[in-house]
């Protein structure tokens, strides 16, 4: 079988000027880094972890109709040491917070966090004594997916946004080679990006017929 490697993205999207200079300095490494970023983004293995109701929608997104596997998240791992991404799906309870923290620490770099659902984003409708008001109080979050619970499609969109962000990330090739910084893409709000097109909608469907 004949196969060849071609770059997925011949035009490297430049994220900011510092990154730009960094890229220009090291052209050979750049192509390799692109390939690695492409590989990383298309094979994000999620961690089989769920706290609450959002986990049911996350599990639904793994099943046939929504099929997370198409996006490269084929292998869902039960142990954090073999996973790339943890999805905090559900309310982060005070009693569970140290456990989540330990699981996050057990994930090996590179690792990403998707905060799924209102409870994980900000405590949601549970402004109550036993709930942490948002998992970002103690974990760095890459993508926030709103919803209560977010539809599986919304979760898939969140995953795709994460993949875009990971595709733009540049990480050192090894601990001996290259600059040891991790350059991440800026987090943009989808609401700001899409507001213009969404505001054009003038006809809303009435709920009195299916």
């Amino acid at each position, binding site marked *: 079988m004949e196969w060849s490697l071609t770059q997925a993205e011949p035009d490297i999207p430049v994220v900011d000027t510092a990154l730009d200079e960094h890229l220009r300095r090291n052209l050979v490494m750049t192509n390799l880094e692109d390939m690695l970023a492409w590989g990383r983004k298309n094979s994000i293995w999620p961690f089989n972890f769920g706290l*609450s109701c959002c986990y*049911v929608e996350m599990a639904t997104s793994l099943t046939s109709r929504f099929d997370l596997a198409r996006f490269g998240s084929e292998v869902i791992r039960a142990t954090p040491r073999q996973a790339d991404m943890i999805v905090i799906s559900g309310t982060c309870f005070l009693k569970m917070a*140290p456990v989540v923290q330990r699981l996050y620490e057990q994930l090996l770099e590179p690792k990403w966090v998707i905060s799924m659902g209102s409870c994980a984003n900000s405590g949601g409708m549970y402004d*109550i*004594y*036993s709930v942490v008001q948002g998992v970002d109080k103690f974990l760095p979050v890459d993508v926030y997916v709103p919803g209560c*619970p977010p539809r599986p499609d919304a979760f898939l969109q969140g995953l795709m946004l994460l993949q875009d962000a990971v595709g733009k990330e540049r990480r050192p090739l090894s601990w001996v080679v290259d600059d040891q910084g991790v350059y991440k893409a800026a987090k943009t709000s989808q609401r700001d990006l899409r507001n213009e097109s969404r505001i054009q909608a003038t006809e809303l469907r009435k709920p009195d017929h299916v």
Partner: protein
Amino acid sequence: MSVAEEQVVSNEFALKLDQQFPGASLFVQQTVDEIATIWIERSRLREIIRFVKNSGFEMLFDLCGVDERMREHRDGLPAADFTIVYHFLSFREGTELRLKVGVSGEDANVPSIHDIYPNANWYEREAWDMFGVTFTNHPSLYRILLPSTWEGHALRKDHPARATEMEPFRMDFERQDKEQEALRFKPEEWGLTRRDENTEFMFLNLGPNHPSVHGVFRIVLQLDGEVIVDAVPEIGYHHRGAEKMGERQTWHTYIPYTDRIDYLGGVMNNLPYIMSVEKMAGIEVPDRAKVIRIMMAELFRISSHLVFYGTFAQDVGQMSPVFYMFSDRERLLRIVEAITGGRMHPAWFRIGGVAQDLPNGWDGMVRDFLDWMPKRLKQYENMAMKNSILRQRTHGVGVYTKDEALDWGVTGPGLRATGMDFDWRRDKPYGGYDQFDFEVPVYQNGDSFDRARVRVDEITQSLRIIEQCLNNMPAGPYKAVHPQTTPPPKERTMFDIETLIHHFLNVSWGPVIPAGECSVTIEATKGANMYYLTSDGGGSSYRTRIRTPSFPHLQQIPLISRGLLIPDLIAILASIDFVMADVDR
């Protein structure tokens, strides 16, 4: 039993108590739900409860506390700062009984009854955790819902409700270490020994993060090799303070919180809460609303049982069936979304009816689903239930007898698998179920396979009920015309000042429900779900007690898994069908 008969029973039982315990001070309280409610004194508590058990009340259905210190409408009730409420159930006669004991703040302790009704163990721990009432002679009075490092008792009226009223959350190394140390299991606290004469036991932690424990649930296993010598379940990792939230939300805005108690049950969870509020307000729901509610509730029962079916097969090793069940569930959720607008948490029932009328075309969708399901169920029967490996893994595993089930507070399919022929829908009908024709599957062995069997058969019966709803949907209003119906029907608002005032108050302040107490129990997806609401005549509930089915089910796990292997425990956990939000609320 009719209303009048229940009241006679109430006085009848008080008479019996008076005869048996002369000189004991008794006070009969009238409640909206006409369940016999008798206040007794603490000094005679244990003997009275023993008498209750011998009088045919086989199950301690619920045990909860109430903080009475801020209650205004007490109307001659005995003085109490804290009340412990005991709710008993007699399956033989179909009657319920409530006993209440009042204690003062300085002397807040009550004798434990865990030796009379074994399932009182966890309920008493919960009352201690939430109210600070101690139970003398309780074997392990530790916190159950909140971390052991917590200070204060959450459901007391002086404990802050909001996280924003307390210190902001910070997780630094010290806190992390302290919390992890508090989570460390100490066998001596639970009466377990670290070794016996031959072996040293291994203590294995299963959870709270584990794919097989179905949520954030922790069991610590005392193992001799792979054989489970004993197990200690630990809950509280999913405590969302739903009961405290009830005191802060209005009667109407609390409905979404009920959805999330049993997160697979969706709109079925709204039903006992709404029916309890409606009973207190005196609202009579129109027939169309009743049938719509039953149809939606049964759709969610099927949805929950499909998830059970898939995960049950998955836990004993079959990887494929869950995908089929979930795609059927998608078809079901399409109907739910078309009618209610939401998938898992529609929060669609309202005080007085439902949120909107059914959309045009709903009957076609439901008909298609009803045509599609039976052959799929047949396929699953061949794929899962007839599979010899599944049978070997579940026959005779996790067996308990009917008496043990009653002792431990098991309800729902777990009880019907032991031979108890009782279903709230048929035997204590609510919300219109008495008009429907369906069977109640009952099996005899009480093992994991029979529990699964009951649920699988219930799916077919639910399809039958939905078909009857489809064929006989009454025309008419979808909401009652009553001042406390929330939100009130808009059409009448613009015609006279009376309805305008009610509409305005209802939409801004929310309904004001007259003072009283009411509990309604339904046959929810997991078992018997009861909402015991206390109103103080305000816009929000004074006390929202949620008796969930999965709480006692988990308490029973050590009993049925001693001497079995770990894979058997996994099959047992799958067969119990619990949801952690249902346990911890």
